[in-house]
């Protein structure tokens, strides 16, 4: 991989890291969006979108409620989609390798989150003391420092997972252990994952049951019709 796409991938990872909880939360950190952006950067938008859907399915059921600690789904999609798209060969993606790298990257992101939140504790303490001693600009500086530190941390973990994904793909090229899967099989796995996770999250009772049945019928007819 040349330098320019690598820098673009680190930038995508940094934006996703910040959007996840410190800034805006516009959902550009969701795996679907990160995976698509990685695909566009590496010249395979359809593959990126498919792998974004794979990681969206993987992390769909994790809810950021309260102070819960969760794997970083955006970082998982960055690592996994980079490995999948750059390792695409003979009509198949290295699915087992990409999925495992994504899962590991998600947990690395969780560790980075904890680090930033602990460090934020010291920044918040300084800001509070500044306000208590009559300096109302303290919190503004704290916000700027925390966002800056988040960007640096996000760029660092993104660089690590992108480098790790590229290295893993080059080391394992041609090996059956990467678990090559064709796009069609991945598509079916995504549908199965979404159907199970979705039905457990949104039980099909009453009007939801009608929506479930209607959705199943219309989608099947649409796919068969388009096919």
């Amino acid at each position, binding site marked *: 991989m040349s330098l320019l796409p690598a820098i673009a991938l680190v930038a995508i990872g940094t934006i996703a890291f910040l959007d996840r909880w410190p*800034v805006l939360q*516009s*959902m550009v950190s969701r795996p679907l969006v990160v995976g698509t952006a990685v*695909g566009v950067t590496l010249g395979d*938008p359809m593959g990126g*979108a*498919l792998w974004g*859907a794979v990681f*969206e399915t*993987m992390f769909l059921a*994790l*809810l950021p409620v*309260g*102070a819960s600690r969760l*794997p970083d789904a955006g970082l*998982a999609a960055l690592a996994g989609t980079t490995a999948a798209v750059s390792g695409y060969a*003979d009509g*198949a993606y290295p699915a087992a390798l990409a*999925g*495992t790298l994504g*899962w590991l990257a998600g947990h690395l992101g969780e560790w980075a989150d904890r680090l930033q*939140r602990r460090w*934020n*504790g010291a*920044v*918040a303490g300084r800001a*509070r003391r500044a*306000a*208590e001693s009559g300096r*109302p600009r303290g*919190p503004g500086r*704290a*916000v700027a420092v925390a966002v800056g530190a988040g960007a640096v941390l996000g760029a660092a973990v993104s660089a690590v997972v992108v480098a790790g994904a590229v290295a893993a793909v080059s080391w394992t090229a041609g090996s059956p252990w990467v678990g*090559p899967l064709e796009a*069609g*099989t991945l*598509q*079916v*796995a995504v*549908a*199965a*994952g*979404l*159907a*199970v*996770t*979705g039905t457990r*999250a*949104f039980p*099909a009772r009453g009007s*939801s*049951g009608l*929506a*479930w049945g209607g*959705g199943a*019928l219309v*989608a099947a*007819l649409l*796919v*068969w019709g388009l096919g």
Partner: protein
Amino acid sequence: MTRGPDRPDRRERRRVALRSTLLQAVWNYETLQGPGFGWSLLPGLARLYPDRQRRAERLAAHMQVFNSNPYLSTLGLGVALRLETEVARGVAGADRRLSRLLKALRGTLGALGDELFWAGWRPALGILAALGAAGALGPWAALAFVIAFNALAQSVRVWGVNAGFAAGAGIARVLQSPGWRRATRLSRIAGALGAGAAFGAGVAWASGIGGDTGGLAVFSGAIGLLWLAGLRVGWKGRRPMSPSLAFLSVLILLSALMHIVEGPTG
């Protein structure tokens, strides 16, 4: 609404809503969203307290523990802006009343927002968009997902400051509105629609790959494995397998199965 010592104008309310996008920037394990809450409120405090020392005191009071859903937190900011006016006027006990109200709001705003956004609209739209991305929509699904989610979430963020300020201490009326329940119910219907569509599309996609029955066997096998991982692995007091690990296991098993059936690739 015109700006005066007692009333925030539109620009000030917009600034508060804009600052609320950084509400969690200094999120920490001691005061949670507290520092961001205080900083978001600063345009209002600057209007109410021209004296720097007094302004800093009130800012410090608002930097105590606060936590709620990030999109609904602006309702709390609006309420604080309104009641802070009484504190600035020197109404007896107003600061204690504001502090008690914000403490009570934390849980309610968190529960309401988490149910609506984190357990409702985000997964519902996520299912529909992921299905679209795996199907014909491809990369456009991600764009549609971001637009649809933000149309709702960021509108609520901006509306929250205005609604919170208008309601003040009567915020309970806003929170009891049947609109919240309707929006949550609608998200559940959208989620069920997406789950059903995933099942239907999965059957159709599966029948198109790997011969007449091969694809359907892959689909039903994946469904069965995921269902078992969620339900049965948690049997007899054990914790259920995490959904991400369950799906990763399915990917690895599918890869192994394809390797055995079709032989090594490459």
